[in-house]
């Protein structure tokens, strides 16, 4: 079997998380929760996991970044880093929906057996969410909605659940709060193991157009190009006539 070394990181939530996976297990992982310092924390975190796992960057065979959805400023740090790092070592860069990584981590805890939701903080009193049949099967989403509009009854995983526990019901809140790059790397390694290099390269190729609608986001496979999932349009108004300065 070919040597697999997956370097994964995610900056789509307040957590800045990086990990290295050798095809069997997570060799090293670093996670810091600080919503305002993604740009400062990520590169040193990557250096740290490489050092701890005694892996040289140039030996990494795949780079994987969480594609969100998540607040865009932080999200872009991870995706830009993945694309640029990959080009320096000639390895492919992939993207994985951050909610999928949280779902995958949830499955590994064994806390939930049936269907569940993953929800993260989308700010503006909304959550990014998706519905899962099990740890690796996304049935719905990712979407952005108000917490009280989430599908009822199902358990809810992630910071969005904790933040709006009062609205959705505290008894529904379960599982991990933030994504872990270890889970992200493991999920990617699992998917990559079933692909030929050609198939993998096809997934990493960046297609035209931006993922800026729920419809486009729903078409995402578990492993794809390192492109951000934007579920909102930029805030911008086309201006009318200039304001008069004289009364």
């Amino acid at each position, binding site marked *: 079997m070919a040597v697999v070394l997956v370097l994964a990181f995610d900056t789509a939530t307040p957590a800045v998380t990086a990990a290295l996976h050798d095809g069997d297990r997570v060799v090293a992982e670093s996670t810091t929760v600080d919503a305002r310092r993604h*740009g400062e924390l990520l590169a040193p975190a990557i250096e740290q996991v490489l050092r701890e796992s005694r892996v040289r960057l140039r030996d990494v065979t795949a780079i994987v970044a969480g594609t969100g959805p998540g607040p*865009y400023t932080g999200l872009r740090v991870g995706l830009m880093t993945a*694309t*640029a790092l990959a*080009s320096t070592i000639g390895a492919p860069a992939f993207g994985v929906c951050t909610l999928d990584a949280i779902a995958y981590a949830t499955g590994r805890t064994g806390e939930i057996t049936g269907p569940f939701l993953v929800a993260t903080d989308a700010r503006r009193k909304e959550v990014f969410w998706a519905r899962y049949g099990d740890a690796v099967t996304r049935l719905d989403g990712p979407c952005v909605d108000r917490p009280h509009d989430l599908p009822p009854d199902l358990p809810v995983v992630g910071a969005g659940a904790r933040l709006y526990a009062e609205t959705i019901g505290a008894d529904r809140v379960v599982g991990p709060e933030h994504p872990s790059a270890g889970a992200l790397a493991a999920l990617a390694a699992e998917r990559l193991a079933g692909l030929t290099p050609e198939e993998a390269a096809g997934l990493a190729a960046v297609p035209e157009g931006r993922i800026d609608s729920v419809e486009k986001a729903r078409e995402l496979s578990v492993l794809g190009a390192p492109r951000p999932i934007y579920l909102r349009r930029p*805030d911008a108004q086309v*201006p009318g006539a200039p304001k008069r300065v004289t009364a």
Partner: protein
Amino acid sequence: MSVTDEPIVLGIETSCDETGVGIVRGHTLLANTIASSMEEHARFGGVVPEVASRAHLEAMAPTVEGALAAAGLRLSDVDAIAVTAGPGLAGALLVGVAAAKAYALGLGVPLYGVNHLAAHVAVDQLEHGPLPKPSIALLVSGGHSSLLLVPDVAQDVVSLGSTVDDAAGEAFDKVARVLGLPFPGGPYIDRAAREGSGTAVAFPRGKYDDGTLDFSFSGLKTAVARWVEAREAAGEPVPLADVAASFQEAVVDVLTRKALQACARYDVKDLLIGGGVAANSRLRVLAQERCEAAGVRLRVPRPGLCTDNGAMVAALGANLVAAGVTPSSLDIPADSSLPITTVHV
């Protein structure tokens, strides 16, 4: 050091709407590749930060590849990475800084986080050779209007004055809107003004004789709007060329006057003008006239080096390498309000 021994520096600039990647060998320009998202902003009448940030993320890798291809180099040939660490739009800067760190980490080369304004000064070396020490620099664009004393662009830049309200380029954009001209307004006003008279309307010159080296363009912009509205209210046609020329004259009169006052006050014989507004044809002419009268040598890089670009960042990076400055660490922040006194972080 022979020319071929000089380090190859790749510079990344994302402080506003341009994704700029430049490559230099010492102070020889090898590539200056730019992807602009201006078309996406034009209909909003100004740069929309989130639109700019999204565009930077998509444009970065292709722009780096484009610059390498233009220079006939591979990534592995790069000896150092320089990047604009500030000032600028926070989210836009962050994309460039993240890219620069990843390239530096991946290639195992030093990273230099640099000041955008100092880079506007340093870029002139690519065209006109080493900067005289000291020089005075007038930087004018949609985002800044600054007068700087530059004893040494790699180490020491002193702010002498800046705008107290609008940047000069911002005034051009706002007056263009009042006149029904497209965004960005600078080139359209420049063109319209060629058919008009700069003395047709006596628009006010803010802070003209206040003894400072600061600028103010907000009052001028309002005066133009008032004048135009009065004409419209009276049912009279607006003489667009004359208004554009008179407005432009007021701006460049103040800019060149203060720049030469700075040269006189600090007894400096070299003036450099940079930033997007340096492309203004009337500014170039009037600055040349006034510099000749005052015995000051004028340096203005060609327009492609005046507007925001990656070559300017690479040029300053080359100065830092040559000066033996300690490289930046991989945890440097993007600082949207980085002061000019901080040339590198």
